[in-house]
């Protein structure tokens, strides 16, 4: 029967909600056990959060000073060792999981299933290819460990609160490389909701025109309590930082409300918002492809419309 190991993603001592989404995918396998593995220099608080997630059987911690930062070369050998006895190893398909999981798979000598959207059976999964223009069903060899990354936008976070899974410390003795070293993380500091888990997202594109003009997007987002995203063109032009990019090569998100402002709707952008609840498009070009997927479309100049929206909101 299936035993699933879910790799916890965390930052600054806090569990990332992508972990609970990966637990949802693990639960869809209906196996015997779902264990969450926390690798950190100080795992206790993170493990305590993970222990509350519904469906989790055990939380395993590996505390080492080397685990202070998520370096794939350092974490992968520990995960590969911890994976012994598990039928599946899942990680969220975030930059954290995408970096680490293939390294684990290669150490185990197995293939990886990337971006699992849905589970058909313990070894059968659906995943997108060609920027989401086709969905394939893949069957993994049942004689080998399945390593997979979980497309977080396809799964809601498993509920948290009622569970009290036991937390156990693991001792893992594997040689850890020193050839890769963390230097620094430059985080855009923001009080806005997190783009990947926000219920509402307002995104700006090249149509916004400049970094200064982007303030109109931030202001409107703050007014409705939304996270802020952007198209690649807006990021490339320097209007906003890279972590705001939504799309095939940026973040794949599924908010309840997505507002695309001054974004044309290129296929690579649409890939990132396919699972959004309601899509709103504001664009001065009535022929823009974004209107093909928008639930509500409004043709006009964003610099005129946004103030009107704010006024209408009161």
């Amino acid at each position, binding site marked *: 029967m299936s035993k699933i190991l879910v790799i916890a993603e965390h930052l600054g001592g806090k569990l990332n909600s992508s972990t609970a989404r990966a637990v949802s995918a693990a639960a869809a396998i209906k196996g015997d056990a779902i264990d969450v593995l926390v690798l950190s220099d100080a795992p206790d608080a993170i493990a305590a959060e993970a222990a509350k997630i519904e469906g989790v059987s055990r939380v395993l911690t590996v505390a080492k000073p080397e685990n202070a930062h998520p370096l*794939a*070369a350092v974490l992968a050998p520990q995960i590969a060792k911890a994976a012994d006895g598990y039928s599946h190893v899942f990680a969220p398909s975030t*930059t*954290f999981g*995408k*970096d*680490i*999981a*293939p*390294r*684990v*798979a*290669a*150490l185990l*000598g*197995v293939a*990886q299933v990337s*971006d699992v959207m849905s589970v058909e059976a313990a070894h059968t999964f659906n995943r997108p*290819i*060609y*920027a989401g*223009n*086709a*969905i394939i*069903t*893949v*069957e*993994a060899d049942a004689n080998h460990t399945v390593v997979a990354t979980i497309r977080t936008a396809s799964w809601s976070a498993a509920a948290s609160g009622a569970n009290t899974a036991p937390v156990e410390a693991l001792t893992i003795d594997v040689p850890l490389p020193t*050839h*890769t*070293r*963390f*230097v*620094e*993380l*430059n985080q855009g500091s923001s009080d806005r909701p997190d783009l990947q888990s926000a219920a*509402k997202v307002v995104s700006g594109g090249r149509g916004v025109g400049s970094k200064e003009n982007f303030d109109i997007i931030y202001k409107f987002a703050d007014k409705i309590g939304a996270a802020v995203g952007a198209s*690649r063109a807006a990021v490339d032009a320097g209007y906003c*930082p*890279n*972590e705001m990019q939504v799309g095939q*090569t940026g*973040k794949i998100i599924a908010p*309840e*409300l997505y507002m695309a402002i001054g974004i044309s709707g290129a*296929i690579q952008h649409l890939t990132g918002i*396919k699972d959004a609840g*309601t*899509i*709103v498009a504001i664009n001065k070009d009535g022929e823009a492809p974004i*209107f093909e997927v*928008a639930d*509500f*479309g*409004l043709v006009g100049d964003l610099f005129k*419309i946004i103030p*009107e929206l704010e*006024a*209408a*909101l009161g």
Partner: protein
Amino acid sequence: MKILVGYKRVVDYNVRIQVKPDGSGVVTDGVKLSANPFDDIALEEALRLREKGVAEEVIVVGIGPANLTAHLRNGLAMGANRAIHVTTEDAVQPLTAARVFLKLIEKEQPGLVILGKQAIDDDANQTGQMLAALWDRPQATFAGKVEIADGKATVTREVDAGLEVIEADLPAVITTDLRLNEPRFIKLPDIMKAKSKPIDVIEFGSLGVEAHDHLKTTHYAAPAKRSKGVMVKDAAELVAALKQKGLL
């Protein structure tokens, strides 16, 4: 130092992929093929490192069918010194591609291997990480900036939280993100020059790589379509509609 560059041919990013009605695959007959955009960026970065004097030789690697030659010539025209073509008519999964690269590394002893972070056909995002694991060397994925000095690479990585900087001893594997650079255009005279550059052809079977594919694709489906919604006439109507849905 030598730099090995992954140079994969994929369906051009402008092509709207169609799934075959019987679910057996996607329509690839007659569609435009181009270099994976991330691989053009990988090659550009390698060429810049050579131009800076950090590297002496840039080698583009393609794993694929016999007709890959013209594609590899584009890589040579862009400026690579030579190409290696590992020939196979079969689809190559990332673990197999990584094993092939490892064989080539043993032979070529590069100081740096630069691959795309993902190929835009399968969107697997695996090969570079797998290669680094098999080679037991550093990986710096999703690179937005690369500096090479004193036998190490300092790489700024585009991660979900922002920009992460890591340091990796060489040799190492780097995978490219879109903002690393803007690839140069190929000029006509370069296409002529590329004709005389060497392409090493290696039969996949001769490498002794195990091509056991653990994954089988059993079905292809078109994604669920979003239907076109309604056009509203002004801001007030939009706000009213969103309020009615409980979204504002």
